[in-house]
């Protein structure tokens, strides 16, 4: 506690920006903005769960101790916000899994970003939807046209699997000034300067690498 007062405001800011609630908020914002599923922040979720339980316990104690209801309701409000963040974070991920379940289960890389529970959820979702498709449509079609993933058996690739659109535009902010290469093969090279803290509107695919290395965050 004593060290608190000795800390400069810059230290305090950096401490604040690395608090779990801030990290959770960032993870939630990134997840909401990114078109594809991102790596699961398991440790962060566990810590947030622990903190929520702790504060819940504290609030109960405050109520028993007869602390001013206004103060208690402020703690409660803070707790509600954190709980919303956590729930919304997990929910946004599940909704993405629902949307791209077949794609995620097909791609080892995408599947590796899920938690164990999410993997189980994805597999279950895919099994349920496959069953639903089969009973509603596929079993009524001629034999060569009965798979979910392909238009017909003569398709070489899975051409019926919805995939996230990585060319969608996202708003991002860079932590430091950064040169972003928008160049793709067959295109004229374009370099975009991202100034520190300035929001930019770019294609997700172009910023994907910088985003994954943590240099850029989505907003």
């Amino acid at each position: 506690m004593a060290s608190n007062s000795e800390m400069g405001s810059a230290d305090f800011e950096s401490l604040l920006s690395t608090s779990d609630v801030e990290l959770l908020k960032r993870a939630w914002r990134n997840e909401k903005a990114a078109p594809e599923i991102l790596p699961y922040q398991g440790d962060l979720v566990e810590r947030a769960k622990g903190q929520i339980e702790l504060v819940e316990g504290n609030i109960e104690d405050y109520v028993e101790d007869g602390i001013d209801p206004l103060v208690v309701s402020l703690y409660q409000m803070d707790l509600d916000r954190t709980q919303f963040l956590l729930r919304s974070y997990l929910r946004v991920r599940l909704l993405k899994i629902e949307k791209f379940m077949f794609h995620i289960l097909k791609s080892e890389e995408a599947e590796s970003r899920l938690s164990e529970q999410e993997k189980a959820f994805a597999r279950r979702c895919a099994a349920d939807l496959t069953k639903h498709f089969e009973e509603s449509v596929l079993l009524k079609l001629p034999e060569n046209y009965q798979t979910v993933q392909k238009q017909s058996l003569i398709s070489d690739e899975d051409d019926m699997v919805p995939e996230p659109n990585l060319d969608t535009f996202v708003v991002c902010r860079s932590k430091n000034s950064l040169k972003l290469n928008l160049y793709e093969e067959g295109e004229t090279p374009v370099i975009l300067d991202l100034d520190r803290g300035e929001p930019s509107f770019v294609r997700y695919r172009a910023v994907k690498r910088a985003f994954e290395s943590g240099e850029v965050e989505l907003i």
Partner: protein
Amino acid sequence: MMCRVLSERVNKKGRGAGMYGRKGYQLIKDFASGEKGHLKPFNSKLFDEAIEECDQNHHLIQSLIRKMQQEGLDVHDNRNADHYGALVHHLSLIRNKRCLMAYVHNRADIVRDLAWTIGLEIIELPPDIQEKLTALEKDYFKNHSVAITSYMGKVGIELNVDMVPPKDPYIKIRVVGDIEQGIVMSDKTTNFTRHSMHFLRRTDAEPYIARGQMEELTG
């Protein structure tokens, strides 16, 4: 108006013969004409007609292939009229399949959304929505609800509450539907007579608001 007259005329002319793949297209149009996020009754007439057209296409493909085989031609290498005839039927079949699948897929998206936003039990859905679901869609709803419930059980967090970011821990509501008596809200038993107004914890009120039994009073 002009367009409608024209298309009616075309329809009359085209009836019987029809253009391949049109049934599927009409099915999609039927879905798209509905309000976004809301279900219309399942159009089983058009749906069955599209399935039937797939069958016809398939029969015609097979008879063309048989014809080529009888003529001693290689089905894969020969590019005669019968080959392209079979190809047209194949493409029509694929198009209908995509439309049928898209129809069921888009409806399934709404069905999942109902589970998230209204309730995980089929009886929680308002009767007019239940009526619009087919038996298969009801099964799908139940299965998906189980998938969500099982995930929530494993992570130990309820995810189908707190759908909007919290502003205040307490909100003012008015009872607009029938709610059975003697429901315990967090701390106290309350009598929710219709039209009565209450000051409730937001998390307690949310499920009732989702089901349309309460409305939030703002401003």
